[in-house]
């Protein structure tokens, strides 16, 4: 039998997952946008600009873009799921959960795990779809199975960090509109400076500094190492894992521990 707090977490996780599965538009749009970018941006830049960077194999920008779009999917799905906190709060459902014999952190943990699961599943689904699209060539330099394992690990670590970060923001911002504004303001620069859309190796020094202090860069690098690159990536697998391994529990714990307004 599962202990009380774990059972509560599981119940909230299942409830939020079920809500996303019932919301077909949310489910499809979160996958259609990266696929559309892959088709339009990937093919457009590959054919129109013919990129010559050594980090983009054979000028095939579409294949290079896969890792970045997986990170983008995890990023937006995870943070969008975190916004369900506001929906539950504004509809009164959060108060009903708070009237149960569990502290706020258990309720938030359940909701955050749901956000992590939703973000990760959608990102992994994108990887699965991308890997069977003709013309996209993934390298899997460490082998397909270890590569998939590494990619899943990168996605999970990224989703946990983003969820914790989103919960931290949610504890400070009272409205869902404000939350989305702040998250977009913060996440778009982080995404663009992560190596998701262009190789970090070719950036000028001052931009490299921003990329180096950007946690998302390490997840994108890990994804590139797992599925696309044929070398050590930008930072290297060890550095990626150390940085993400330290940041993930720290940011997630801070997010769950932050006191959120319940009304």
């Amino acid at each position, binding site marked *: 039998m599962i202990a*009380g707090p774990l*059972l509560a977490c599981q*119940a909230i996780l299942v409830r939020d997952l079920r809500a996303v599965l019932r919301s077909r538009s949310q489910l499809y749009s979160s996958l259609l946008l990266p696929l559309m970018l892959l088709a339009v941006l990937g093919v457009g830049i590959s054919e129109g600009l013919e990129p010559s960077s050594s980090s983009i194999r054979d000028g095939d920008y579409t294949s290079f873009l896969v890792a970045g779009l997986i990170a983008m999917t995890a990023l937006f799905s995870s943070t969008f799921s975190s916004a369900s906190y506001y929906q539950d709060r504004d509809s*009164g459902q959060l*108060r009903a*959960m708070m*009237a*149960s*014999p569990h502290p706020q952190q258990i309720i938030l943990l359940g909701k955050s795990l749901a956000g992590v699961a939703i973000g990760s599943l959608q990102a992994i689904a994108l990887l699965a779809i991308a890997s069977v699209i003709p013309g996209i060539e993934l390298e899997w330099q460490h082998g397909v199975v270890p590569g998939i394992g590494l990619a899943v690990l990168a996605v999970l670590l990224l989703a946990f960090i983003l969820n914790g970060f989103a919960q931290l923001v949610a504890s400070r911002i009272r409205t869902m509109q404000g939350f989305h504004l702040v998250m977009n303001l913060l996440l778009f620069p982080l995404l663009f400076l992560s190596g998701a859309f262009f190789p970090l190796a070719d950036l000028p020094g001052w931009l490299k500094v921003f990329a180096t202090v950007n946690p998302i860069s390490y997840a994108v690098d890990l994804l590139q190492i797992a599925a696309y690159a044929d070398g050590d990536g930008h930072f290297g697998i060890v550095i990626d894992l150390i940085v993400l391994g330290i940041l993930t529990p720290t940011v997630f714990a801070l997010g769950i521990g932050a006191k959120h307004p319940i009304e």
Partner: protein
Amino acid sequence: MQSPAAPPRTAVAAEAVDVTFSYENRQALNGLSLSVAAGSIFGLLGPNGSGKTTLLSLFAGLRAPDSGSVTVLGETPSTGLRARIGFVFQESTLDPLMTVREVLAFHGKLFGMTGARARQRLDEALETVALTDRANDAVRTLSGGMRRRLELARAFLPSPELLLLDEPTAGLDPDSEKAVWAYLHERNEEGVTIIAATNKVSEADRHADAVAFVHDGRIVAQGAPPELKSGLKHDGLFVEGEFSDDEISEIKAWPEVGALRWSSPLLHLTVDSAATFVPKLFQAAGASVSAVRVHEASLEDAYFDVVGSGLDGDER
């Protein structure tokens, strides 16, 4: 948590002593003291904003008082104690996309209920509130009365010893209101203490064993409804008309008149005897009167008499 370990029963189910509580810029409770007997149906009667909901949230341990003490089921309210308390909020807190069964199963899990026993309790709860045939329907398809019954079933699912109700029948039609109270009386007969915050006088008068009048964050009177009404003038009257200030002053000075409130075009007052008062009123100001309604003095009159304003907040 499935069946909370039998705690020692206390004679007092909930108690607040000299409690204060403030929101950012508003004092909600101002030295409130109250005692609720175990096993009773207790009515908190007061207008909106008087502090009833805040008091319920303090009993549930969702907030802590700024000063004073709160004791519930013999303990200081805590997260763990909520396993023994049910709470039905004023506004619906149901997920419209979940089915009726999912709502109950989810709530049961939050209270540690799993397995065959939980499923049995869930089926019993559905049957008790007559929602068995709607078990697989989405909440959004239910009527207001059905949703309220579902919220009650949800609150009772983990077998609480104390149920906190905030405006339990707000927005319900008379038949639904009757069904809700029938269900609540059944649970009360099983030993559950019920504290219901309401601004419906008839509800408190008809169903509560004891009532407290809440005004400006304080309890201004407390007792059984007959006790609260016992000191009143016998009859209550609503007189419709257009009275001058002089006429109102004259009526107020009559010795048989108790409490009086004038909010044009309605004059609400209590008198010793309507049979002698009404002819006297017509003699003094008959031309101003357009209608008279007489009733036996009610809890609303008692509230009006004690507080000096009605439950809608109008001043005397």
